[in-house]
């Protein structure tokens, strides 16, 4: 622990420090955005390489108004949410299994660890052969991307629960259902949530990335298609759109996560 964190609390006027941090953070962001705006404006880079930020934004607006973005947004987010829902439905039970059965976890551990080194995108043609050219192959890839992080976080989240909590439950003679609902579940929630957070981000990355390389529609495809067809405006607009969406989602998830951890911190 760094010195501040040991004594980190309201009584040492952290709010002032927090303000300074916020000021610097703003400066960093403004500097970055300003650079993107000014480089093409001042003619320091070609307009075919980079367009000013404001143009990207107005392009986003016009793409949205004209409805051009809509089908891609629907496509991409259907895939993300479907994959994520599938990830939760399969990942959490599997995580619970791994937690209940130590040997199963020991068996799978090394495989789970190397899992993310596998280029799952390469299975796309196979998935098309299986499911046909529709949204399912993308959902499958995004699911493959997100499920394992959900599994491992669920398993380790449950494992992290201090023995003492179930013991309190046993002293109160709780039924197994009560035990799960009122002890294991809330105790593991913050850790499991971290898994879900990452799972969602991975589903997003998996979806956009496979659209980018392989698919024929979706936001990822729109970026790569407009790149290929020299439509730099649309390319930057859709890129910025994807980035903004993932940042917003990420911030929302982090805020929820912080809350949960604050409650669980012991």
């Amino acid at each position, binding site marked *: 622990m760094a010195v501040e964190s040991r004594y980190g609390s309201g009584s040492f006027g952290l709010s002032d420090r927090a303000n300074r941090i916020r000021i610097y953070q703003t400066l960093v962001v403004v500097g970055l955005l300003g650079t993107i705006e000014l480089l093409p404006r001042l003619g320091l880079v070609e307009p*075919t390489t980079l367009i000013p930020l404001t143009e990207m934004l107005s392009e986003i607006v016009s793409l949205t108004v004209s409805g051009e973005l809509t089908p891609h947004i629907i496509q991409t987010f259907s895939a993300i949410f479907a994959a994520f829902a599938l990830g939760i439905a399969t990942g959490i039970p599997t995580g619970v299994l791994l937690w209940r059965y130590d040997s199963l976890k020991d068996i799978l551990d090394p495989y789970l660890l190397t899992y993310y080194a596998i280029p799952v995108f390469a299975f796309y*043609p196979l998935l*098309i*052969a299986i499911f*046909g*050219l529709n949204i399912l192959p993308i959902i499958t890839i995004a699911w493959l991307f997100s499920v394992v992080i959900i599994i491992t976080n669920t398993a380790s989240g449950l494992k992290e629960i201090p023995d003492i909590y179930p013991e309190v439950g046993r002293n109160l003679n709780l039924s197994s259902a009560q035990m799960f609902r009122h002890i294991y579940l809330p105790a593991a929630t913050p850790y499991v949530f971290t898994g879900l957070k990452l799972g969602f981000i991975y589903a997003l990355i998996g979806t956009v990335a496979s659209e980018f390389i*392989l698919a*024929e529609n979706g936001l990822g495809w729109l970026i790569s*298609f407009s*790149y*290929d*067809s*020299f*439509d730099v405006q649309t390319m930057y607009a859709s890129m910025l759109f994807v980035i903004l969406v993932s940042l917003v989602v990420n911030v929302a998830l982090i805020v929820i996560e912080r809350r949960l951890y604050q409650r669980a911190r012991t």
Partner: protein
Amino acid sequence: LDDLEQRLTGDGGFGDDGTFTGDATVTHWPDLMYNAPYHVALENGYFEEEGIEIDFVGSEGGGTTVRNVVDGGLPFGEVATPAAINAYLAGTPIVVVAGATRTVDEINWVAPTGSEIESIEDLEGGTMGFTSAGSVTETTAALVSSNVDEIDPESVEFQEMGGVGEGVTAVEDGAIDAAANMDPIYSDQQEEEETWQVVFWAGDYVDRFQQTSIIVDPDVVEEYPDAVETYLDARAQGIESLREDPEAAAEVFSDGAEGFSTEVMRDAIENVDPDEYYTTGEFDVEGLQNVEEAMYATDLLDEDEDIPWDEIFDQSFLDEDDHIDFEEI
């Protein structure tokens, strides 16, 4: 221009009298039919004779190849004609200096051997798969359906499959009635056993189609016109050699390509008829007309948009006799 030299210093550079060292790209290098002349020219030393030391780098089809030429700093590329036009219209600095292939004779639609779908008539009310949006199989399908008399094209459903492999798997499973295929993939799949029966060849309904053309960096056109000359020359020699001795060309092609045997390449070359398929540079009026029509049909061009042929195409590297009048298109 500094930029150009800088980009080229890594890979080589241009000399006087048309000699140069560098990379170029051909769409779908090294496997598909567009590539055969280059393999032959490389193998027979036509490039070397012209003082050209060249390496070809691969790229996927469509706009990607044009992108590769521009972002890859490549002086030359053979790319899909619609993609080149499209790129130019989007403001990309390229010049189309020559035609490359002018038919779609390597493309066909197949059904499993023994199935009831034996000819285009049988597709009435059926489903036909093409590979992907904007691909040559899509544009060809559109042209075929506008030329076909045997059936009502309105009754045929067109379905995007994602690729040749996905299409043929789907047609095997019976999910669609006919799948787009193309040489040498088709000949390869036919080699060991008669897997497919051809429902129709695209060439039977589309006579000419300027599939690919050669694009060049405008700076190169400006500064090193000789290099363009020698490059086109070497390629043309490759085509002539291929036409003269398809047998030998097949062997060279199979060596250069990845994973296709000499027999397969021989069949494939035979299927496309090299005299018709390849051009030694000249453009084809009907072929370009079809390109334009296909671009309207697939929404690559808006209704009210015209192609400024004169701006995009530069015939100055072709023989006077071969020049066409763009007004005719």
